[in-house]
């Protein structure tokens, strides 16, 4: 049975203000979805709410992961269950190297399965990390740098994808992983993502640019407007937005404005 993330009638508020007004979305392992929409339409809110950020309050609806109620899980439990969020603005973690952080994250997974687990051995971990870095064409010096501290935009995004590769999630949400990247960095990051996409990984790519989608080629495209998903389709929907922009969406759903 394939792993599935189901979002049903999700309402989310931030500081008492309702941002998501009933979102339904289902992502299965092996599928590639794109969530598009203008700035402020609620895409990132959906990502944070799924991951369990404490500032995002779910007021109605449900999120199920493999049939389990995600809303009852802490963020770390969601991660260990197989959910992953690539942040739009990854936080700098001063004093913690990429390698030490990833080892701690892997060990937390092992400990959750077996509290007696002594953790991955350093040689075994080094081998794993080197393999993943090679695979994603990440410079080995990355491992010894403090996580995201002083990283360029492209390095931060690559570090997110490296984390995804090491943690091996079932469903990943990539929140504007394309933003702030020049064309070369964009290609490198997209190739990294493409190399991870497969039958064991479902992806929800959040973007408001189409360029990125030309690399990723999603099979399912969802358009968000005013906290709701208003249009759904295949890759042709992304192409339509590429040609026509979002004005037609705003016109068509003008009735939802402010509701």
């Amino acid at each position: 049975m394939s792993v599935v993330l189901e979002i049903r009638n999700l309402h989310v508020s931030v500081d008492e203000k309702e941002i998501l007004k009933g979102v339904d979305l289902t992502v299965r392992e092996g599928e590639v979805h794109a969530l598009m929409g203008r700035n402020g339409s609620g895409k990132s809110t959906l990502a944070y709410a799924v991951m369990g950020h404490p500032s995002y309050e779910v007021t109605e609806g449900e999120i199920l992961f493999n049939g389990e109620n995600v809303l009852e899980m802490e963020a770390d439990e969601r991660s260990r269950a197989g959910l992953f969020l690539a942040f739009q603005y990854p936080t700098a973690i001063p004093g913690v190297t990429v390698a030490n952080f990833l080892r701690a994250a892997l060990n937390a997974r092992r400990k959750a399965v077996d509290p007696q687990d002594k953790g991955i051995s350093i040689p075994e971990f080094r081998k794993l990390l080197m393999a993943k870095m090679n695979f994603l064409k990440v410079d080995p010096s990355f491992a010894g740098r403090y996580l995201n501290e002083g990283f360029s935009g492209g390095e931060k995004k690559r570090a997110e994808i490296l984390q995804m590769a090491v943690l091996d999630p079932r469903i990943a949400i990539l929140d504007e992983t394309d933003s702030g990247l020049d064309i070369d960095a964009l290609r490198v990051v997209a190739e990294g993502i493409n190399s991870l996409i497969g039958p064991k990984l479902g992806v929800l790519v959040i973007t408001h640019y189409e360029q990125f989608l030309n690399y990723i080629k999603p099979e399912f495209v969802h358009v968000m407007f005013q906290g709701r998903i208003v249009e759904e389709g295949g890759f042709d929907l992304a192409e339509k937005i590429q040609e026509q922009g979002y004005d037609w969406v705003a016109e068509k759903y003008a009735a939802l404005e402010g509701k």
Partner: protein
Amino acid sequence: MTVRTRNKTNAPLLTRQDVEALSAAKNEPSWLTEARLAAWDLYTMTPMPTLQIEEWRRSDYTTIRWESASPIQHGSSAGKEAIPPETLAPLIGEAQGGLIAAVDGRIVHNELDESIRKQGVIFTDLDTAVREHGELVRRNLMTKAVKPDEGKFASLHAALWTHGIFVYVPRNKVVELPLHSVFYNTRSGMSLGHVVIVLEEGAQLTLLQEYLSAEGQDHMSYVGMTELVVGANANLRYVALQDWARNVYDFRHERARVAQDGQLDWIIGTMGAHFTKQFAEIEIDGSGAWARMSGLFFADADQFMDHDTQQNHNAPHTTSDLLFKGALKDSARTVWQGMIKAMPGAQKTNGFQANRNLLLSRDSRADSIPGLEILTDDLRCTHAATVSRLEDEPVFYLESRGLPKSESERLLVLGFFDPIMQRIPFAEVRDRLGAHIEQKLAHVAELA
């Protein structure tokens, strides 16, 4: 209701006879006995510091019970085996240039690699140095770096120091292997340890000094002094780690002098004791000299730690760089007060100081008091002081990768200390210190 008996005068219960008896027991030369007695006179003329004195304003040591913290510790039956073996382990792989260990003020181990001895390096306990290198000791003991008249505890130390190490590296000699000294205590009473390190021109040395003690109920006092004399173009890396048991009150005066083009890398770690008051000062005497002071402290339970630092630029074209990082939990309190002074004529000076404090509990409190005193122009000085808590965003970021909250916080605190940890050049010492930080953190989790 418990009634705590306190010494009315709140001063150590010591007399001139204690000085005479100690000097006689050590069979010291008359110059030293006289120096001790002169210091004793100074001591009796100096009042005990009170909260009315600026540099003691936040440092209330009056909870100390001098009945148990006064008797001079000058040897006991405890030997080297009392010291935790991991403390005595070699600093780099199997190698260690030399090891001196003192237990209860008595030297129990004194060893220096033959190849280093052949370089003319002296690394021995202070009593032996007085006997074998009297003139050299006399020229350097409390004459250059710290003087007996600097305060009540400095004169007390000068009168009654119980043990110490004397390190001397001749001109242009480079000591490749690190030296290691451990002051350990098993009993209450007063212990007065002394560190003197003298590097002649062009000499190089790395030394680790550790302070530890066995758990105990009765109060113990440590009244210490450290003197670091770095010659022209010499290079000293000095790491001092304090991990006394919680019955200890630590009073220390420490100063380094750095001559022209000399380099000093001084690392201070404070983890233990109930009460710590440490004066640590750098005098940059020669142009081109560079001095860095790094501090790491972690106070928990009802610990109090006060680090009082000075960076005095006495010559032009000098650099000093200070960074103290501290974490606090439970109802711990810490103070850091630092001063950069640029004396007249000290142009082209670079002076930096920063103190970063991380509060891990509601009831902890960190005071951070930077200061600049600039008596010249054309220089660059910066200072920064912050007191903050763990931020939500980094914690969430780590949690979103599967790390439980407590584990996320552990990683962030270790990360907070990491830049200072990386300046400690001994992997095993770093591991020991890291484990200790984790122990203190784990205790938070139990309470929460």
